[in-house]
């Protein structure tokens, strides 16, 4: 739940969450275990194909929402069901309370439903005097604790067995042992009478199949079956996004959802209900059955060209399972009702800007969520877009407006960077500096920050530009700000590796920052502007490749620009041509230059690798850098969790230094555990973070960009 008024309060809450030892350990264990069980569950299956099937089925359903609703309603009503459509949360609550009243209900049992959480149904019903009991174990626990869920599938994942034992001791007025098996049995016995006494059962649904008029429910505990069987009244609350055209589409979803959620091939129960089934205590022996479809903005979402994809979500929770920020702070701080990446987005639409405004800033843009999403939703993009919208609605903060202004004017930006070099002079020592001029904060102390280089790469270029005769390839080098102004030696190393291998390098001087930082800050207009400048500067028609050593730039140039300019008729074609030519350094060295072991000297020492988010997920480049290490005569020692974010995330590390520091600490511990001498990576941002962290720790481990390692080993 979000209660923080501003970013400052939110950060204080985050610090509190970071101090929760149990939560941290539980989340770490979960993150690691989840990855393994998910991989196992999908082994041998065409995962991309399955995800595409779900996306297609859900997109089709969203486009035909009203049509499917009528089809479903006709079928269900023919089977005796009363179907309602609630436009708002309040309407849904009132409809359900009215059904309870009309049927003389006193006690209600519920099975788990995120949609019911979305509209705060329990509060409404309890306010009207009904006794409501959650029967899903996790939901019951948090209901007893008067809390919201911290995970969409495992709502009580933040609690320990000790806390549950204390809670159950209170509920039963008997001392309970701290033994999970026994606690589960206590719940079994305590909840059973609740079903027996209840007059009404409330459930959700995972799918509503239009062609048959049936609801499909996916559960593990089996409480859903009791909730829909024992009481004489059954109300199902179903988001309009749960409609699917056919049984086949529903089966497709069921094939992916449990595997992606918990690594189970299927949940223990899948229950299909249509119409008023046999129910002894109900009038005429037939269940009183109502279905309440909830709109609450879903119909409008279905018509939105960008955001309609959120309706694909099947609520598997995977986007939280893999999120490094969720892993650090847990669901109460990384969501409001809905949790994880999708939660950040849904919070804005269902619970408002106030609840969403801090949350959306806390995404480090690592792309892990998008990578595992059961429905292929571009979650990081949508989160950034909402961040931008909130700024447009509430006003842009000063630093973000300033940066946007500066970036739009390349010359001004570069002049400022050069003068930053002068301002820092007295502080610089050994290439590290405590405070870059823009970061006057003690909180940045968890890593040493580098100095601006004495000479930017663009100033070195005229001198080092290699003369290539009879080149077979024309390659434009895009350096990105960090390699231009902070680590020009990395670009120089790349020039040395490429020179003399048949590629003519060019460094167009009009290039500027790729624009990712302003996009991260929600400055979409400036992001578009800079994208256009760069496409003009590096005219795609002139080059065979646009090479960059920065993974973040590469992924932004390749995918981000098309998203920013793809709908603009005057830019779409060139943005696509541009994207097609962008290549990262490791892929270029391995696949284009075709570097081979003969090109390198032996004895490159030992190295481990950090896979930058924007390389491994952003560009899908996984093997190339590891292959290159071996090709270059370096002994590669794999580290744990190589593909987990290092915590840099550009402006993220400035806004949330304590989270950045934690992510970095984990990353370095894993790297150091390999005993390798060098930590290699493919992104200058990651180099900055990793090197700064190791320096602060006084570690002997060195950090090198891939280009530097290759330059050092090449014959």
């Amino acid at each position, binding site marked *: 739940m979000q209660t923080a008024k501003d970013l400052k309060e939110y950060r204080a809450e985050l610090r509190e969450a970071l101090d929760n030892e149990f939560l941290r350990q539980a989340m770490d264990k979960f993150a690691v275990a989840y990855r393994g069980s998910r991989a196992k569950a999908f082994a041998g299956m065409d995962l991309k194909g399955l995800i595409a099937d779900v996306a297609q089925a859900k997109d089709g359903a969203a486009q035909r929402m009203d049509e499917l609703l009528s089809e479903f309603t006709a079928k269900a009503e023919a089977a005796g069901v009363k179907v309602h459509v609630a436009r708002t949360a309040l309407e849904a609550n009132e409809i359900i309370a009215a059904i309870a009243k009309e049927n003389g209900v006193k006690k209600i049992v519920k099975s788990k439903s995120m949609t019911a959480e979305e509209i705060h149904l329990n509060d409404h019903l309890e306010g009207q005097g009904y006794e409501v009991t959650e029967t899903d174990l996790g939901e019951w626990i948090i209901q007893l604790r008067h809390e919201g869920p911290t995970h969409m599938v495992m709502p009580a*994942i933040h609690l320990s067995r000790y806390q549950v034992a204390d809670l159950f001791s209170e509920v039963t007025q008997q001392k309970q042992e701290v033994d999970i098996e026994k606690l589960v049995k206590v719940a079994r016995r305590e909840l059973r009478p609740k079903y027996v006494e209840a007059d009404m059962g409330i459930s959700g649904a995972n799918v509503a199949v239009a062609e048959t008029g049936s609801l499909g429910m996916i559960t593990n505990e089996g409480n859903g079956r009791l909730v829909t069987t024992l009481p004489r009244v059954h109300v199902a609350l179903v988001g309009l996004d749960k409609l699917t055209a056919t049984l086949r589409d529903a089966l497709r979803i069921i094939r992916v959802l449990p595997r992606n959620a918990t690594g189970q091939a299927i949940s223990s129960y899948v229950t299909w209900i249509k119409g008023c089934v046999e129910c002894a205590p109900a009038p005429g022996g037939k269940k009183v059955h109502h279905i309440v479809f909830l709109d609450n903005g879903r119909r409008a979402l279905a018509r939105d060209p960008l955001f309609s994809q959120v309706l694909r979500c099947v609520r598997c929770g995977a986007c939280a399972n893999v999120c490094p920020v969720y892993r650090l702070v847990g669901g109460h701080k990384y969501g409001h009702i809905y949790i994880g990446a999708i939660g950040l987005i849904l919070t804005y639409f269902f619970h408002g800007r106030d609840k969403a405004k801090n949350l959306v800033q806390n995404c480090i843009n690592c792309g892990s969520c998008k990578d595992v999403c059961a429905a292929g939703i571009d979650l990081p993009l949508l989160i950034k877009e909402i961040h931008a919208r909130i700024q447009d609605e509430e006003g842009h903060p000063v630093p973000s407006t300033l940066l946007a202004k500066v970036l739009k004017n390349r010359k001004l930006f570069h002049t400022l960077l050069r003068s930053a070099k002068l301002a820092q002079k007295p502080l610089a020592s050994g290439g590290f500096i405590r405070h870059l001029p823009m970061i006057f904060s003690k909180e940045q102390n968890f890593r040493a920050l580098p100095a601006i280089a004495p000479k930017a790469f663009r100033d070195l270029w005229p001198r080092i530009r290699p003369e290539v005769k009879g080149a077979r390839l024309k390659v434009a080098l895009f350096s990105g700000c960090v390699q231009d102004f902070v680590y020009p030696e990395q670009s120089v190393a790349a020039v040395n590796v490429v020179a003399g291998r048949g590629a003519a390098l060019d460094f167009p001087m009009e290039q500027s920052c790729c624009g990712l930082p302003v996009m991260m800050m929600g400055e979409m207009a400036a992001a578009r502007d800079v994208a256009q400048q760069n496409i003009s500067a590096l005219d795609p028609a002139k080059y065979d490749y646009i090479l960059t050593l920065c993974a973040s730039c590469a992924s932004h140039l390749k995918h981000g620009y098309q998203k920013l300019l793809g709908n603009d008729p005057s830019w779409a074609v060139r943005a696509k041509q541009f994207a097609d030519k962008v290549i990262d350094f490791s892929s270029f060295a391995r696949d284009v230059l075709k570097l081979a072991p003969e090109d390198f000297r032996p004895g490159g020492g030992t190295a481990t690798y950090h896979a930058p988010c924007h390389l491994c997920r952003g560009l899908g480049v996984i093997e190339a850098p590891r292959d290159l290490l071996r090709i270059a005569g370096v002994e590669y020692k794999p580290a744990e969790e190589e593909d987990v974010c290092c915590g840099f995330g550009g402006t993220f590390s400035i806004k949330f230094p304590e989270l950045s520091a934690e992510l970095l600490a984990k990353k370095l511990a894993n790297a150091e555990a390999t005993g390798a001498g060098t930590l290699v990576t493919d992104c200058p941002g990651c180099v900055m973070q990793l090197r700064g962290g190791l320096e602060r720790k006084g570690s002997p481990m060195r950090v090198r960009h891939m280009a530097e390692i290759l330059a050092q080993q090449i014959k």
Partner: protein
Amino acid sequence: MSESQPLSRLFEEKAKAVSAVVSTVTSLEQALAHAVDLCDKKDACQILVSGCELPLSATGEALCETKQQKILAAPGLEPKLFAKLKELAAERGILCIDTGMRQRLGGVDIAFTVADFGIAETGTLVFDSNSEEQRLATMIAEFHLAVLPVSKIREKSFDLEEELLALLQKSPSYTAFVTGASRTADIERVLALGVHGPLELHILLLED
């Protein structure tokens, strides 16, 4: 038959992976004997339902006391088979019922059912559960013992699409996929079986 052979093996493998107990029978009569045996051997010295030995609230306790004897529920079984089962059960002092589940909500020992279909890929049983007695029995029983004719096994859920559509199109209809026992991992992600429904699922593959 030659085709269903590997499917039944795949089914067995997948069902066991979710802790179902799988064995093979050659006739329904053999399955009945198995059911009575299982009921007889189950917690030989105790008729208490699971969880009732723990410290509970007064309402929790009250429901425990409703069960006084070993009970085998077999709703929906053909009358002749049911009579046979009843006879076998009586020999061991077990009460055999096919109706009145609402009077037994404290729990019964075994629910004996015949599944309509099986899905090999996930080890899933499919039941037409329109009958309330059937639905309840398979939830309140501590062990669910289901017979699955091997000829009814398909590889994937998609291969059952037509049959499922026929089930779902009935009006009204309640159809259940059951895979393994009732489970939860809601406390510290530790797997525990039998949170609301059966603690164990036993499957008898019937070679028909």
